């Protein structure tokens, strides 16, 4: 059963409708293509940076970072590469004695030396068998090395919601292979956006070693999982990614190694440089309560080259990105990848209505502009609220207007071409497009006369 107005259409009008719909569809799909190729990456990136720089989660998860900075690198590690395994393992053990909620180690320890050092073996046994009663309640999560790649999705796959997949071959932790059955490690992997900036964190990756099964062992998620085992946290099941927000937050504290620790006198004289193998906590450190804090240790010394462009700056330390990633894993915000098809349909519908509003006779330009904005705004909120995806923030606006204008131009040309009065005689003024398509040609003439009158 076709609606009455469809049954009243003449074959010419029906053809016009179909061709218009096809052209609209093609224009709308084509207008998505520049977005796919990253043409809007600069604009979207700039807006996203502003948004993420201002935003901060409302939660109160306490995260503290302990950074080996350039000074610590010289003072405690003799500016030597690689970092002495005994010094690194000793540092982790000493910080563990602070009894934080979780201790995350954002230092890659894939070197075989970690396997050979007795201290490394003892630490691994402690993790797996929980043999040390004094510190066994403090879980430690290690960053694992990895080889990674991205498998890009094609245009049509992308249009229907497909996203690039991160494929990983896990490396090792403390000199031994990182295995899926152990929860004490995660891969601190971050995708780059089109403008080569880090803004988000995937919640899983494909393990190529194990037939591309999805692994949830990202470093941030592994730390968050350990933290949330004994606390009530939001369940972010279903979210594909989390967003890194860079707004100021009192729950994020930063320390250098020398703020919390000092070297035992037996190995290093006070003020001297060298390799510290005997760490001691400072009184300031032991005097604070750490039981609700996620403690994250990593390196910010320049030789580590662990800095990446982010909304916070061109060289944001990886340690900070991981801290923000952990916070986002616990508190959000999360991202659900939306289908571009949804955006496409939204664009077409809103474009149609905006086009109609601008063609509506008897209304001022100001009225039409406000009406259009009022229409676009809920559509914007809809896309943000239901399918929060940064690309849609601005691209949708642009595409809506482009498709709306293109639609108007197409309709105008078609009607101009089809109308008998346009083959000769004076140029005819435009008519409301939707009105025209629902009435006969004779009625159009009458309507035109009335409206002009």
């Amino acid at each position: 059963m076709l609606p009455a107005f469809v049954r009243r259409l003449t074959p010419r009008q029906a053809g016009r409708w179909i061709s218009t719909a096809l052209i609209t569809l093609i224009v709308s799909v084509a207008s998505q293509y520049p977005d796919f190729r990253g043409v809007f990456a600069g604009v979207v990136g700039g807006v996203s940076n502003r948004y993420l720089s201002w935003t901060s989660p409302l939660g109160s998860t306490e995260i503290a970072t302990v950074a080996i900075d350039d000074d610590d690198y010289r003072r405690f590690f003799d500016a030597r590469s690689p970092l002495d395994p005994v010094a690194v393992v000793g540092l982790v053990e000493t910080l563990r004695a602070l009894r934080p909620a979780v201790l995350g180690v954002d230092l890659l320890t894939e070197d075989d030396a970690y396997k050979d050092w007795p201290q490394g073996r003892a630490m691994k046994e402690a993790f797996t068998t929980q043999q040390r009663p004094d510190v066994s309640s403090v879980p430690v999560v290690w960053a694992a090395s990895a080889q990674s790649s991205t498998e890009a999705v094609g245009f049509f796959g992308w249009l229907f919601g497909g996203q690039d997949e991160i494929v990983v071959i896990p490396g090792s932790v403390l000199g031994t292979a990182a295995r899926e059955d152990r929860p004490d490690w995660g891969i601190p992997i971050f995708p780059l956006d089109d403008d080569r900036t880090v803004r988000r964190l995937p919640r899983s990756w494909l393990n190529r070693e194990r037939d591309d099964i999805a692994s949830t062992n990202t470093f941030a998620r592994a730390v968050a999982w350990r933290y949330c085992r004994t606390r009530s946290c939001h369940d972010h099941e279903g979210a594909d990614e989390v967003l890194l927000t860079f707004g100021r937050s009192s729950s994020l504290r930063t320390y250098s190694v020398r703020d919390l620790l000092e070297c035992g006198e037996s190995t290093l004289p006070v003020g001297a440089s060298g390799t510290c193998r005997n760490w001691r906590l400072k009184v300031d450190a032991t005097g604070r309560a750490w039981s609700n804090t996620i403690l994250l240790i990593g390196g910010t010394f320049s030789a580590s080259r662990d800095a990446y462009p982010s909304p916070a700056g061109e060289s944001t330390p990886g340690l900070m990105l991981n801290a923000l990633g952990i916070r986002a894993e616990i508190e959000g915000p999360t991202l659900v990848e939306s289908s571009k098809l949804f955006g496409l349909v939204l664009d077409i519908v809103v474009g149609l209505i905006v086009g109609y509003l601008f063609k509506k006779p008897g209304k001022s330009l100001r009225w039409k502009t406000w009406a259009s904005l009022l229409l676009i705004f809920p559509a914007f909120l809809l896309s943000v609220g239901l399918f929060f995806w940064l690309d849609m923030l601005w691209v949708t606006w642009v595409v809506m207007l482009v498709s709306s204008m293109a639609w108007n131009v197409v309709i105008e040309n078609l009607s101009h071409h089809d109308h008998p009065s346009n083959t000769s005689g004076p140029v005819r003024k435009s008519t409301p497009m939707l009105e025209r398509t629902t009435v006969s040609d004779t009625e159009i003439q009458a309507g035109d006369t009335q409206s002009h009158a």
Partner: protein
Amino acid sequence: MNNMDANAQASRGHWRRGNFLTRRTPWVRHALGAALVGCFVQPAASQQQIVHRVVSADSGWQANGNRLLRGMQIRETDLMSADTAGDLILECSPQNELRLYSCAKGACKKVSVCSTSGQANPGVVERPIGKLMWSLTSLLTREPRQPVLAAARAGGDPNDAVLRLDPPRLHLGPALTRVLEGRYCFLLGGLPSSSTSPATVTLDWDRAVDSEGVSQATGVAPGLYSFQKGTPMGGSCQADADGATAWVLIAGSDGFASLDTIWKEQSAIAADLERSGASRSAVATVRHAALAALAERITRR
């Protein structure tokens, strides 16, 4: 003026006098011998260096037991296999031809890499991908952005090593075990310390793409060098302020294998020494002494 320049000048002098072949000086015989050997060795050496790039690989594909990922390099002599059904696209050097390998049923074994012999691989459909088709396909795909691994490796300085020189290509990989991926320059200063300015080589280091770390090093001769990492600054190389200087022994292709074997044995002993509690400077002295002894062998040759 170094020895090579002197030899070249002497060679030109002989040529002008027209007695290049009549004067049977020892260096002429050596040069002739080297040229003859080079005729046979050079093609084999260059053939060995042909590497191909993985453009895309489905999950089942691997080479020499390692899963293949986009961007990896594999050698012509490697054998590939696929334990599950899937496709693999390789960019075959030196023509940069794209070739598709499709394993329809899985369990495809011993698949040769970019073979030009026309020998069929059982169970695998292999065909070149036309440039036009590839161009059209590339319109609907995009270059994937490689993710970053946001963690500090335990350091970033070069280590002592024996490096292979395959003139003018220098294989820096063994000295970059702990160096993070990135674009670097390296300063090679002759040892014992000389007044000549150090040679500079640059490298876009990415162990997933080229684990050998092959760099162009013109004018670098076999011998013992200090090896320092730096950042390319315009045309010069700015050495890292806090960077540690390693020692490297550069060996020609002919003697590299034996020297490398000895070095690995000796560096294992040094590692044991370090584990037993010896100071780093003492261990470094042992390592450097071992490299200097190996350098003596090159000099004697």
